[in-house]
Each structure stands twice: as structure tokens, then as C-alpha cells.
């Protein structure tokens, strides 16, 4: 009995061997490069020594069990963690070679370049039009009302929402259905023409049909944007992403081409996760 316990503990330790990330975590011509990043919430470390490149005009899926640090990692990329008082980030993170955490980097401008879509649709308490016009107005992107109209309409079109809302642009954003609200949030993000869009489980609060529409949209957006998406759904990761990164307990375990990760995972934990053994 005693013997069995020890050997089992041993095998778990073997599983929890986080020495180094397996797979192709570094690539050429990356949009965002993260090297040896550690993230702490107060004393508690949430991300351990993570290095990862995010490719230009690609979709990378971040997967892993709940609480493994996917959201935390995503939020370090546009400094949304600045709003959390005791959150600390170390390591090197660059956007097109510029240090994201440099003193000279203005987080406000950074977030205009690296936009974010959240898990729950969070339209502002404003009209559909004003929701989309919000970012362009703040950043002074339009010099005239006509130009602003133009931005709003193209953004809504790119988000695949325009046809559905063109007759009620003055209706409150909250009057839309959940899936429409999420597309409105995507349109809102697109409207400030970011270079990167971070999406934190953008479809997890939506029904299957709305989810399918969003997935299709993400695939189209890849043409113009670099996208990092956190998802709980294996199928979704497989459908929308070119690369997949698997996180476990704050460690980046394995990275690779999505097709390769799902057909031929190299790390035991990755295999366990994608075959549903845990998570």
C-alpha cells in the first residue's frame, strides 16, 4: 500500500515536469514576442518562465484547464493587468520589437494597438452606433461625422453585424442578442484599427449558432489582424487557429501547429487534456 502510494506520487511528479516548453514556441517574424515572462499576483505566481511568439496574421489558440493562467497571459500582452493593483510582470515582452513594459510605452496607446474582446459580451450602455464610435472618438480617428459613419459602418460590416442592425443603429447595444452583442464588441475593437486582437473565451457565453458565426468571423479577421484567442473548446481551437499553446498550472507546456497538436501531441499532459482525461 505504502509502496503503491509512493510510486503513484512519483509518476505525478513525472507528469508535472515543467522543465521546458515542448514544440515550436519560437518562430520567425513574430508580431509579439514573449521571453521568460513571470507574472505574480502579490506573492502568488500565476505564470512561470514563459516564452512564446505570436505570429503575424495568424490565429493562436491558448488552451488549458481553468485557472492555468490563460487569461493572465493574454492580459499581460496589452497591459490590462495594470488595472490590478498587486499584479507584477517580469521578463521581456515586445510588440514589433518595442518593449511593451517600457516606461516610455503608454498603456493607453498600446491598448489601441492591441485590442481585447472579453468572455462576456460587455457593450457599453450606449446606442449600437455609439458603441462602435466610442474608440474612434477617443482616439480622434475621424475628422468629420461622415468619416466616423464610414468607420462605424465598415467595422460593423467586418464584424458581420451590419446587415442585422443597419435599421436600428440608435437602439441600445444591450438590446441585441448575446451573439450580436459579442460581434458588436468585436466591431468596437476593430473600429480603432488595432494590429492585434486578444480574445478571452469570446464564444463561451453563446449558443452554438452564434458561436459558429463568431468562429467564421475570426477566420476572416486573420487577413488583417493578428489574433490570440483563449478557448475552452478543443473543437474551436482546431477550427479557428493555426497554432495552439497548451498551458498547465501557469506553465507553457507545449506549442505547435494546431493540426500537429491535436493529432500528435508530444507531451503526456497535452495528450491527457485534449483527449479529455482532465481539465
Amino acid at each position, binding site marked *: 500500500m505504502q509502496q503503491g502510494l509512493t510510486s503513484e506520487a512519483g509518476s505525478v511528479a513525472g507528469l508535472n515536469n515543467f522543465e521546458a516548453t515542448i514544440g515550436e514556441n519560437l518562430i520567425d517574424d513574430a508580431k509579439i514576442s514573449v521571453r521568460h515572462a513571470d507574472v505574480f499576483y502579490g506573492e502568488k505566481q500565476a505564470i512561470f518562465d514563459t516564452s512564446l511568439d505570436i505570429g503575424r496574421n495568424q490565429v493562436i489558440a491558448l488552451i488549458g484547464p481553468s485557472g492555468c493562467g490563460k487569461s493572465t497571459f493574454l492580459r499581460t500582452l496589452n497591459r490590462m493587468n495594470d488595472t490590478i493593483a498587486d499584479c507584477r510582470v517580469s521578463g521581456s515582452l515586445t510588440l514589433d520589437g518595442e518593449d511593451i513594459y517600457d516606461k516610455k510605452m503608454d498603456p493607453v*496607446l498600446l491598448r489601441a494597438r492591441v*485590442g481585447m474582446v*472579453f468572455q462576456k459580451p*460587455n457593450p457599453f*450602455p450606449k446606442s449600437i452606433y455609439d458603441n462602435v464610435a*466610442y474608440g474612434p472618438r*477617443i482616439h480622434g480617428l475621424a475628422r468629420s461625422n461622415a468619416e466616423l459613419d464610414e468607420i462605424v459602418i465598415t467595422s460593423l460590416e467586418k464584424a458581420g453585424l451590419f446587415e442585422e442592425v443597419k435599421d436600428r443603429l440608435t437602439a*441600445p447595444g444591450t438590446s441585441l442578442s448575446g451573439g450580436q452583442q459579442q460581434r458588436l464588441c468585436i466591431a468596437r*475593437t476593430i473600429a*480603432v484599427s488595432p494590429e492585434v486582437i486578444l480574445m478571452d473565451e469570446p464564444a463561451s457565453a453563446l449558443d452554438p449558432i452564434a458561436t459558429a458565426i463568431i468562429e467564421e468571423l475570426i477566420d476572416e479577421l486573420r487577413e488583417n489582424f493578428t489574433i490570440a484567442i483563449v478557448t475552452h473548446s478543443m473543437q474551436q481551437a482546431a477550427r479557428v487557429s493555426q497554432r495552439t499553446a497548451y498551458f498547465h498550472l501557469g506553465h507553457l507546456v507545449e506549442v505547435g501547429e494546431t493540426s500537429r497538436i491535436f493529432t500528435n501531441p508530444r507531451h503526456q499532459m497535452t495528450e491527457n487534456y485534449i483527449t479529455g482525461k482532465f481539465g
Partner: protein
Amino acid sequence: MSVSSLFLIVLGLGFIAFVVGQQRAAGYEGDTRLKSLPHHYGFLTAIWSSIPALILLLAWLSFEPVYLQKQIEQSLPVEALNQSEEVLELYMNNIHLAIQNNQAGDDEVVNNAVLHYQRSELHSRSLITALVFVLGLSGIIAGLSRLLFRLHARVSIEKVIKAFLMLCSGVAIVTTVGIVFSVLFEAIRFFEAVSVFDFIFGSSWSPQTSIRVDQVGSSGSFGAVPLFLGTMLISAIALIIAVPVGLMTAIYLSEYASARFRASAKPALEILAGIPTVVYGFFAALTVAPFIREVGESVGLSVASESALAAGIVMGVMIIPFVSSLSDDVISAVPQAMRDGSLGLGATRSETIKQVVIPAALPGIVGGVLLAASRAIGETMIVVMAAGLAANLTVNPLEAVTTVTVQIVTLLTGDQEFDSPKTLAAFALGLMLFISTLVLNVIALHIVRKYREHYE
């Protein structure tokens, strides 16, 4: 037996009934399971025992004085009853005095009446005591009967609780309706003497009526416009101070301050609302008003020693917490997701607050402002002390003005006849004030609901 001991008896019997019902249910051994828990049966028995007894007791409490008065009247000889009304009233007073002091006097008739009174009281008390016992005990006996277990005690108790809650809310409603009607009737009497039109649109307020009927020249004028204008002026000044300061405070507390600072600053601010208004009043009269006067005169303005500005400023300080505390609550309740959404688009913190957080919190903020406004409109003491009593028709904040509530107080204090227009004017003012605050509240509710529809 005294009334309080009768209540104690009802309570005691109710408690015994609870124990009896509970014990019986706890010891129940039937073929079917009981529908409710033992203590439900306890409460049900207690209700059976005490509610009828309580109702009887309350009914008796309201009828006993009438009955006893009748008894006194019956004991009086015919000659005594045939006296003029005033003499009879005096006589009755003597009798009641004798009853209270429990002393025999010289007057045989009075002594006889007192004796009669005491005997009737004794009878009535014994009867009610016996009845209370009978009702209380029969409740307990009902609890001992087989009837108890046929009932679903929990459901019955819910019904009783519901009735009780309805009764409580009924009390509030009946009181409000009662107040409205009493004010309304007095106001109607006022409007018999003074025309409604003169009251609502008249621009001069000097409620001195003649003391003698044949006096000339001082019939009094009851134009309420200066009072309402004064009220609006002072309230507006108070809100101009309180709304921005309160709102900024709320924004700082909820968006920027550390949790520790907020935890101590918020209660400290709320103390402002707890300071007695008299204290604010003399602060306004002794510190703020002279200061304003000095400053005003140094730049060549003529400032009255009592001014609307002084009262308004101090009142504004007083109502800051109404705005800040409520706004802070609603701002903090705006979901973090809203802020994240805005920050994620590259908005700054202040842009986020201005364009997303405040609009989302607006219904609650409007509510806080309205609470503050109604507080300002109803405030009396600060105005008496710092803004004066002169009913000037002016919008100049440097002059003395008076408000509706202040005039109501001055009209009703001191020796007043209760049927002169001067006194009745207070009720008319009260009615007008009630109607205007009601309208204000309805408008506010409408605004809040409109925003709710849009923003949730």
C-alpha cells in the same frame, strides 16, 4: 387587572400554547407523516391562542372609555344633565379629576359618579380578564384536539405572516392618506377665505390678519410665490454645491481611492448628514453669513446680514453625503467588465469614467440627487437662522429670503387661533409643498425608469 398585565397574560398563554403544540407534534405517532415541522404546529397553536385574544383586547381598549363615559352620564341626576353645555363640561372635568386623584370631595353628586365609575370599571375589567382567559385557553384546547394534525401548519403560518405584513404596510399607507386628508381639509377651509388663484400666483406674502373685525388695512395677503421662489433659490444653491462636490467625491472614492481610505472616508463623510441642523444653522448664521457679507462688501456689493447664499452653501455641505454616498454605491456596482471594455479600447481612466461608468450609474446618481433635493426643500432650521423670515420676492442670493417650511413653522408656533386664515395658510402651504415634491418624485422616477430601459 391592568391593561399591561392583560397583554402579559395573552403572551404567557401564547407561549404555553406554543410549547403544547410543539410537544404534541414532536410526540406524534400516526400512520402518515406530519405535513410540517413540530415548531410550525407550536406557532399555529400559539396563533390560535393569542390572536383572537389580542383582537378582543384591542377592541375593548377602544370601547371601554366610551362605555365608562356613558356610565358616568347615567349616574348623574337629571338636573345636572340639564345644565348648559359649558357648565356640564366643567362638571365632567371635576368628575374626571376626582377619578384620577381618587379622592372624595364635598359634592355628593360627584362622589356618587366616581363610585359609579369605579364600579363599572371593575365590572368591565373582570369581564375582559375572564374573556381573555377563555379565548387564550380555548386556543390551547384546540391545539390539543385532533384538529391540529389535520392542518398543514406551515401553510397556515405563511398565511398569517402574509396578513401581518399586509397589515404593517397598510399602517404606512393609511397614515399617509390620513395626513394628506387632514392637510387637504384644512387647506380647503383656507381657500374658503383666500382664493386659490391669489394664493398660487400672488406675489406678496404678509400673513398678518386683523386682530379685531372692525380693524382696517391689515387683511393680510397670501401670495405664495415669494416663498416657493425662496425655497427654489436656496435649494438650487445647495444643489449647485452638493451635486458636483458629492459626485466628484463619489468618483474619487469608488475609482481612485484605496480600499482602506474608502473604508474610513465614507463613514466620515456620512457624519456630515448626522450633524443636527441647528448646529449647521448657527454655523451658517455666525460664520458663513458674516463672511459672505464681508467679502461682498469689500467688493462693493450690498449683502443682507441674512442671505440665501449663506443658508444655501451650508445646506449644500449638509447634503453632500446624500449625493456622494449613494453615487459611490451605484458607481461601485457598475460591472468591472464595462471598465475593462473601455480600457481595452485604449480609453484613459477618466474617459472611461466620464463616458461609460457615469452613464451606466446615472439612474442611481439621479436618485441620490433627488434625495438630496427633497432634503434641501424640506430643511427649515438652517433657513430660519441664516436666511431670515422676510418674504422677499427676489432671485438675488445676497438678499434675505424665506422658504415654505419656515413660514409653516412661524405660522403655527405661538398662540394662534386655529380658524384664522393665518393659521390655515400653513396647511395650504403644506399641501402645495406636498404636491410639488410629489411631482418632483414622479418626474425623477420617470427619468430613472427611462434610463433603466436603455442601459440594462
